């Protein structure tokens, strides 16, 4: 007879996740019961308060460490705190972007072009469901990098993915494209989830365990059948690499980046990367470290291809969101070198890079939301020309974010790049260093081309203009810019904090 053991949960350590889930549920209740007019304001307030409370509770327990925060399923450790903190900070600054409701369709259920859609637009309905959806996604992201068994990892993956699939389809303009991108994201995501599950099955077959520590023990023990381990790692990696957008599992990302409402793209591009790389770092560092000869060569090849491919294809892009998508693919390649490094400096560098890149990404997409004409956002790069003349500050901020992506000194991107490449080289991977540096040179080319376009070309007279940023968007841009440059000029406090905190408990 099976006896049911009631789980012991360490609520203090789980509080950051639980608070966000609670906030999301309150948001759902507000959707159900509050009058339409009161929703927008209260939803923003609740989302923001939730995230801040969650961050506060995370700070409160920052030095806590436990491998049994929720039985064996969740481990709370230094690296987890840093990753969760990064996710929360990125979520906080991007939630301001969600507040700009211009981005979203009025009634998600209405068919594009239907009468229903027209009336909903005339009534000026606000789509406030985005807040609870975003909060659910955040909760999933918070859980993802601290999960230490494969089942919880899968649940977290789905928890963060499903709301994002929905959010991607909510764009107000070009709704068909938005919905198409959402469907693509969903189908490919579901496909990769299937691979992920397959990987779990193989790993269970190999180790007779689903917990990371159990798999680790099996890897050390070496009694299992290595074929199953190899297959398990391969399939599991497909799911993870899909989420981070590494080649050859990147196909969704340009379309989704372009089709999704820009506010969602910002949030997704930044926060998902932190969560997915966080989980990837944990499982590779904790469970598979001793089997590195099984996966490292393959992952190195993927990293190299991803860097080069992302940088090269980005050159050909004429749409700013697609360009940023390919640039994020290239950055996924750089970040993979942190996973490959498999040493403490690789972990530190990855966490720094993730945070710095995430913040700059939110800032860059926030600026994309500002460049509009009468039909909404203008993402065609040619129509961005001369932006510096019309709105020097917005253009300067955008150039700053691009320089950070390009890794120019005195921006956060440079410190990130330096530390992640040196970690990879420290672990003996010369190929990563050389290819990384060369593809950075290629990448610099298209970032600079955009800077040329916005500063040195004359404006086109076609009604493209920069809207005065709402207070919310201003906050987002200001915080992102300050963080990006502060981390470039004096990164020591953060680096020291990461260095002393970041570690995975087994």
């Amino acid at each position, binding site marked *: 007879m099976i006896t049911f053991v009631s789980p012991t949960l360490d609520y203090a350590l789980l509080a950051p996740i639980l608070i966000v889930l609670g906030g999301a549920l309150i948001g759902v209740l507000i959707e159900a019961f509050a009058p339409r007019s009161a929703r927008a304001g209260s939803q923003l307030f609740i989302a923001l308060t939730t995230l801040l409370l969650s961050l506060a509770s995370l700070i409160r327990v920052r030095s806590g460490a436990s491998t049994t925060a929720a039985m064996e399923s969740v481990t709370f450790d230094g690296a987890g705190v840093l990753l969760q903190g990064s996710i929360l900070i990125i979520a906080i600054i991007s939630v301001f972007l969600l507040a700009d409701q211009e981005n979203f369709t009025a009634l998600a259920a209405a068919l594009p072009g239907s009468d229903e859609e027209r009336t909903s637009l005339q009534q000026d309905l606000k789509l406030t469901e985005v807040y609870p959806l975003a909060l659910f996604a955040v909760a999933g992201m918070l859980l993802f990098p601290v999960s230490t068994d494969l089942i919880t990892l899968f649940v977290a993956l789905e928890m963060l993915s499903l709301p994002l699939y929905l959010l991607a389809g909510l764009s107000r303009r070009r709704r068909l494209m938005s919905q198409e991108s959402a469907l693509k994201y969903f189908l490919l995501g579901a496909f990769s989830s299937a691979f992920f599950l397959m990987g779990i099955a193989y790993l269970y077959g190999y180790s007779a365990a689903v917990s990371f520590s159990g798999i680790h023990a099996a890897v050390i023990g070496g009694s299992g059948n290595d074929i199953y381990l190899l297959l398990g790692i391969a399939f599991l990696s497909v799911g993870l690499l899909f989420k981070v957008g590494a080649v050859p599992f990147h196909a969704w990302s340009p379309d989704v980046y372009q089709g999704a409402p820009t506010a969602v793209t910002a949030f997704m591009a930044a926060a998902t990367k932190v969560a997915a790389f966080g989980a990837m770092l944990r499982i590779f560092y904790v469970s598979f470290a001793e089997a590195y000869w099984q996966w490292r060569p393959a992952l190195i090849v993927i990293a190299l291809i991803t860097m080069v491919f992302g940088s090269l294809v980005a050159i050909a892009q004429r749409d700013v969101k697609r360009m940023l998508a390919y640039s994020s693919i290239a950055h996924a390649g750089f970040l993979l070198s942190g996973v490959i490094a498999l040493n403490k400096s690789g972990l530190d560098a990855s966490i720094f890079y993730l945070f710095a890149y995430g913040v700059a990404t939110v800032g860059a997409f926030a600026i994309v939301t500002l460049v509009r004409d009468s039909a909404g956002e203008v993402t065609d790069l040619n129509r961005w020309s001369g932006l510096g003349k019309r709105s020097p500050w917005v253009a300067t901020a955008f150039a700053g974010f691009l320089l950070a992506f390009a890794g120019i000194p005195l921006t956060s991107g440079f410190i990130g790049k330096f530390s992640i490449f*040196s970690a990879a080289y420290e672990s003996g991977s010369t190929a990563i*260093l050389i290819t990384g*540096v060369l593809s950075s040179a290629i990448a610099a080319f298209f970032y600079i081309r955009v800077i*040329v376009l916005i500063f*040195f*070309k004359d404006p086109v007279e076609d009604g493209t203009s920069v809207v005065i940023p709402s207070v919310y968007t201003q906050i987002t841009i200001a915080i992102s810019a300050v963080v990006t440059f502060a981390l470039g000029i004096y990164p*020591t406090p953060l680096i020291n904090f990461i260095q002393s905190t970041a570690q995975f408990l087994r």
Partner: protein
Amino acid sequence: MNLANLNLLTLSMLLPLLGTVALAFVPKTNALLTKQIALATTVLVAVVGIAMTISFDFGATGFQFVESREWIPAFGIKYALGVDGIALVLILMSVLLTPIVVIAGWNESEGGRWSPKVFYSLLLVLETMMIGVFASTDVFLFYVFFEAMLVPVYFLIGGFGSGDRAAAAVKFLLYSLFGGLLMLASIVGIFVMSTRYGNRTFDITTLSGLNTVLTPMMENVLFLGFFIAFAIKAPLWPLHTWLPDAAKSATPGTSVLLLGVLDKVGTFGMIRYCLTLFPEASKTFTPMIITLAVISILYGAFLAIGAKDIKRLIAYTSISHFGFITMGIFAMTSQGMSGATLYMFNHGFSTAALFLVAGFMISRRKSSTISDFGGLQRITPIMAWSFFIAGMSSLALPGLSSFVSEFLVLVGTFTRYPVAAIIATFGIVLAALYILIPVQRALHGPTTPGNENLKDLTLREKIAIAPVISIIVILGFYPSPLLNIINPAAATVVSQQGFSDPAPTMSEGKK
């Protein structure tokens, strides 16, 4: 930190930044106040630079005006400054040139894409970085300045230049970034190696011992990362193609800083980083580098002879001159090293003079084609004489400053690489051609139609050009104050390579 013991180097870097902050509060419409603030700031920095030179201890070895603070201790990175004679001379050159550029470019800033405020803010930020790049004694800090410097220059060329300025700015930036990224790979290499050998640091003095533990292969690779970046900066054939475009498109003032100061970072880097960090690799590559340098000398000279545009002409002459400097550095003799350093200083001023006068001519004639000028000697005598003297300095006429340095370089090279020195001597003959031909076309001969009413130099322009010409003439007759500063440092660098000067077989080198 209290103000009294503020390091002079830090002070000279801080002042331009304060100037930039002050500029931020000037209303955009008040261009005059903007210029005045910029001028006051740069003059003040020049005064600090002169004060530093005066209080510099000639006899002492090692770095002076040292300051060292933790910056990113996790990576062993320090905010570490200090100068030896070589760096000091280059800083002095930079801080003297900047106010001259401000005066000369009084009107240049008006015609740009943005307001003068932007021009002078960029210029001041650039000045901070120029000082920083020469003053850093931490390799990482050097790299930060080396790369970050590109951004203001890029906007100065692209925003305020003429012609196809955007394309020239991009070409400049991409070339430099490419070199910079190769150097980044080497810096990562140094970092990992120094960590592996137990002392995680970027301190140049400590790192100079690193080569003893590197494999020759490793040392060669790391050397190349640095050297290619520097060879792009101080354009060495065949990596020079960005320079003529950038020099042509930038404003004359920007060109002065670009060729006069920024390109010197390349040759300075070869001395400070290539030679100090990788002595063995430097020896390995010396024959190749000397060959490239000689090719640059001749190639630049030939292109200069054929140049039709006056700014491109000056750029090509600089390629030739950088060939001389590089040759002097890699000759590994103390005369060659001293000569190369003095050459860097002198080249800064003679190129500045050429570019400034060319700028004055172009702003009057609204053309930079040499054949559009003619008869200037009669119409605008002062301008013509200034151009003449600048040109004579560029071809190293005895009595003008460049002669001393070119002579030293050739002597220093001859004692070790006589063939290279003899071939390079042809560069001097060619220099006579590339300077005298434009002098003849532009200054003498019949007046080209349209030139009759050109005005001679204004008071402002005279104030800008006078100090440059004075320095050229004074140092031509009396170079020893500078050589006193340079020589000990140059001798130190050479002896660190394990070289001693060959015993002179000819008591007098030939010119």
